[in-house]
C-alpha cells in the first residue's frame, strides 16, 4: 500500500514536472515570438522610410506615439534634447520624394519585454542613398495592442563621428 502510494506520488511528480516544463517553454517561445514581432515592427518603419511610404511607417506607430531627439550641436557646442510631438511631421518627411532615399539599418537589437510593454535599444546607421550620413541609437518603447506591437515612444541619438561603417 505504502509502495503504491509512493508510486502514485512519483508519477504525479512527473506529470507536474511535465506541465512546469511546458509552462516554461511556452513562455520562452512567447518571448522569442514577441522579440521577432518587435524586430519586424522596427524593420517595417525603416522599410517605409526607404520607400517613401508614410502609410507603411504610420502603421507601426501607436495613436499616442511621441518622437524625441537627442544630439550635439557643433554650433552651440552643447547637447540638445528636442521633445516635440512630431510623428505627423516625421510622416510628412517620409512621404516627400527624394533624390537619395533614406536608408536606416539596425546594427543590433537589444530587447526587453514585460508583458505588453517592451524596450528596444537599437544602434543604427543612416545612409542617404549610398552615401553614409550618420549613426546613433534608436531607443524604442513599444506597446502590444491586442496582438500587434506598436511604437509608443522613440528617442534617438545621432552623430557623424565614431560610427562603425
Amino acid at each position, binding site marked *: 500500500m505504502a509502495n503504491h502510494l509512493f508510486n502514485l506520488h512519483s508519477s504525479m511528480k512527473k506529470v507536474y514536472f511535465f506541465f512546469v516544463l511546458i509552462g516554461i517553454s511556452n513562455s520562452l517561445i512567447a518571448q522569442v515570438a514577441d522579440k521577432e514581432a518587435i524586430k519586424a515592427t522596427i524593420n517595417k518603419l525603416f522599410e517605409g522610410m526607404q520607400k517613401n511610404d508614410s502609410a507603411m511607417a504610420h502603421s507601426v506607430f501607436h495613436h499616442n506615439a511621441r518622437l524625441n531627439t537627442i544630439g*550635439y550641436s557643433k554650433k552651440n557646442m552643447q*547637447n540638445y*534634447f528636442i521633445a516635440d510631438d512630431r510623428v505627423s511631421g516625421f510622416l510628412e518627411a517620409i512621404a516627400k520624394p527624394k533624390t537619395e532615399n533614406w536608408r536606416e539599418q539596425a546594427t543590433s537589437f537589444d530587447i526587453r519585454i514585460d*508583458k505588453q510593454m517592451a524596450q528596444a535599444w537599437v544602434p543604427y546607421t543612416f545612409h542617404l542613398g549610398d552615401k553614409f550620413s550618420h549613426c546613433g541609437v534608436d*531607443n524604442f*518603447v513599444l506597446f502590444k495592442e491586442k496582438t500587434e506591437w506598436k511604437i*509608443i515612444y522613440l*528617442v534617438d*541619438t545621432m552623430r557623424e563621428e565614431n560610427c562603425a561603417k
Partner: protein
Amino acid sequence: MKIILGLILSFFVFNSFSQTPEKEAIKKVVYQLFEGFEKNDTNIVAPILHKKVLFRAVDLRKNPTTIAESDYQKMMEGIAKPKTENWREIPSDFEIKIDNQMANVWVKYKFYFGKKYSHKGIDNFILYKEKDQWQIIYLIYTRR
C-alpha cells in the same frame, strides 16, 4: 605579442571602468526620485526631472490594459501632497545602457504605501545628460 594582449586587455578594463561611474550616477538619479517620493519632497526631485518629462503607467491589472499619462507638473503635485502613508518604491536588478548623452534603465520595483505592499512591475526610464546632470526625460512603468 604579450604587450599587444596587455594593451587590448587594459583597453577593455578601462572601457568598462569609464562606464561604471556613469552607471552609478544614473542609479543615483533613480534612488533620488524614490527618496523624493518617500519624503514628499519636490526639492529632492526637481534637479533630476527634465521639465518636459513624460510619465506613462501601464496597468496590467486592468482588462484591457490601460495607459495613463502624466507630466512634470502633475508628478510634482503628487509628490508634494501630504500622505498618511508614504510612497515607498524599492528597485532591484538594474539594467543600464548608455550611448553618450542618452541612457536607459530597466529596473524591477516593488511599491509600498508605508509598510503595506501595493504592487510591483518594471520601471523603464530614459535619461538625458545636457551637461553634468542626468535627468529623466521619460518613464513608462508596468503595474501588476
